[in-house]
């Protein structure tokens, strides 16, 4: 891009001095009418603001106090200095951070702050010199891919909710990689990190980054973090590479970019499923925090216990309701009606029975009477029959008796005969015993000549010493007693 040489606004018109001189000359014939300073300055300002140019220069001074409404800086080259002013919002939007010595391109128009009589260049657009070219190329690629629909919001996939494996593609050196790892470690240690360390700057970077993407996907990553730390616009050029952008768009799993470069988005940012402003932010977005998960588990635990407990209580309550019903508590509840029925019937029975008994009694009495009436007749008949039978019986008995008699006689004779015989043996025995007894009897002894001596008192004398001379003695012999005296 060529740099326009500032056009001299007063080319062909001479200097300001000449202008006023001319103004004065024109009015010389009449009375000369001089402008006020304000008028004059406004005149100049109007003329200046017609000059719109792009200027390239080196920043020699830079003022950016937070309270100011604009950024003030000075561009200069060997021959001149130009005061520049850029309203704060435009300056922020430019994405350029001015520093002394930077070579920049500014686009805008000249103006004047007439109160102080100062001229400055009002900057609308600010880029780093030489960057314009790059940006144009990037914009072209971006438009091309957008036309293919690669940036369509509908293409962007949701991230897996609880990933087990997270891919990380970035430089193995520097802060970004450890920012991400630390963040994941703190927030979501459940996931395994599949790391592909590649170069992120220079000509080889796009190829390496794409290779890193393929590697982590092949190893089973369920999503990929594509990140790099801060740097200049040139540093991020690999992420504007068309080949890499297509690889990101074609990635089979969601890609989250965290390329630290506000406010521009790289083309990779645009085709990614989610764009974050920094590597750390990308890490945080990739998964829920472990605290959230723990809380979710806790909620599950409570609900589980509550729901099950509620069902148990409900069941217990329903059982209790049944248990409390009269049927189970009061035996009469079930049988009461029957019992009452029984009582009623019992009463009726009791009431009925006497009546029934009366009836029966009456019937019995009637029957009795009839019976009595019939009785004698029946009895008569019976008597006759009885007599007849009696006769027959007697006759039979006589016959039987006769026979019996003879039988009896015969039996009697036998009885007598045998009865007598029956006595024979016992008689014989008795005789024998009598004989034995006889022989043993003291009387027999006495008959053999022995005697029994007694004294007067009747006491037995069986020793000589029992008596003394002169005593009376009574001697029993076989046929009597001899009274004697001892000599």
């Amino acid at each position, binding site marked *: 891009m060529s740099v326009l040489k500032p056009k001299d606004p007063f080319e062909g018109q001479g200097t300001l001095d000449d202008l006023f001189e001319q103004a004065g000359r024109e009015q010389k014939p009449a009375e000369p009418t001089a402008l006020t300073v304000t008028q004059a300055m406004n005149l100049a300002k109007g003329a200046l603001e017609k000059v719109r140019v792009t200027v390239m220069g080196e920043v020699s001074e830079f003022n950016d106090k937070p309270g100011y409404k604009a950024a003030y800086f000075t561009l200069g080259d060997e021959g001149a200095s130009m005061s520049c002013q850029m309203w704060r919002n435009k300056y922020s939007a430019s994405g350029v951070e001015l520093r002394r010595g930077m070579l920049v391109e500014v686009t805008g128009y000249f103006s004047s702050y007439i109160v102080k009589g100062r001229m400055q260049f009002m900057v609308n657009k600010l880029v780093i010199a030489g960057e314009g070219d790059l940006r144009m190329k990037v914009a072209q690629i971006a438009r091309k891919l957008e036309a293919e629909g690669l940036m369509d919001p509908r293409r962007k996939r949701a991230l897996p909710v609880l990933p087990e494996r997270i891919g990380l593609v970035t430089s193995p*050196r520097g802060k970004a990689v450890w920012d991400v790892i630390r963040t994941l470690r703190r927030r979501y240690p459940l996931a395994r990190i599949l*790391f592909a360390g590649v170069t992120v700057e220079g000509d080889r970077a796009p190829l390496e980054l794409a290779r890193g993407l393929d590697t982590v996907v092949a190893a089973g990553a369920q999503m990929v973090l594509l990140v790099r730390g801060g740097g200049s616009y040139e540093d991020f050029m690999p992420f504007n590479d068309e080949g890499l952008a297509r690889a990101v768009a074609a990635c089979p799993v969601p890609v989250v970019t965290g390329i630290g470069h506000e406010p521009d988005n790289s083309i990779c940012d645009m085709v990614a499923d989610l764009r974050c402003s920094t590597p750390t932010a990308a890490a945080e977005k990739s998964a829920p925090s472990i605290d959230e998960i723990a809380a*979710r*588990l806790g909620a*599950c635990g409570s609900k589980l216990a509550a729901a*099950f407990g*509620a069902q148990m209580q409900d069941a217990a309550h329903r059982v209790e309701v049944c248990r409390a019903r009269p049927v189970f508590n009061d035996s009469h509840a079930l049988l009461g009606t029957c019992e009452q029925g029984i009582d009623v019937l019992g009463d009726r029975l009791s009431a009925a029975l006497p009546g029934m008994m009366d009836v029966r009694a009456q019937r019995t009495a009637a029957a009795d009477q009839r019976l009595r009436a019939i009785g004698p007749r029946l009895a008569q008949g019976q008597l006759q029959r009885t007599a007849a039978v009696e006769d027959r019986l007697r006759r039979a008995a006589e016959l039987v008796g006769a026979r019996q008699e003879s039988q009896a006689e015969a039996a009697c004779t036998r009885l007598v005969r045998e009865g007598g015989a029956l006595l024979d043996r016992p008689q014989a025995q008795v005789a024998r015993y009598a004989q034995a007894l006889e022989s043993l009897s003291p009387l027999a002894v006495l008959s053999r000549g022995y005697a029994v001596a007694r004294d007067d008192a009747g006491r037995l004398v069986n020793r000589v010493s029992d008596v003394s001379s002169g005593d009376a003695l009574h001697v029993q012999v076989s046929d009597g007693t001899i009274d004697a005296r001892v000599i």
Partner: protein
Amino acid sequence: MGQESYTAIDEMTFAQALAELEGIVRALESNTLELEDSLERYERGVALLRALQGRLTDAQSKVDSLLGQLEPEKDDETADTTLS
């Protein structure tokens, strides 16, 4: 009893186990199950809950370096004194 239809918890991913657990909670809250089924689900739910809580406490970020050599993490002192 239907235990055969349950997958071993060890073979389930965290997300799968959590999904099953939340399913059980919904089923129990719907109060449409027979008491025996509720008991069985409750026990399964408790087992899942314990396993998941265990996994959370035991979790440690592991980094597999597939490409390149990961430089060791700089401790705070070194990080402060080197230009990033």
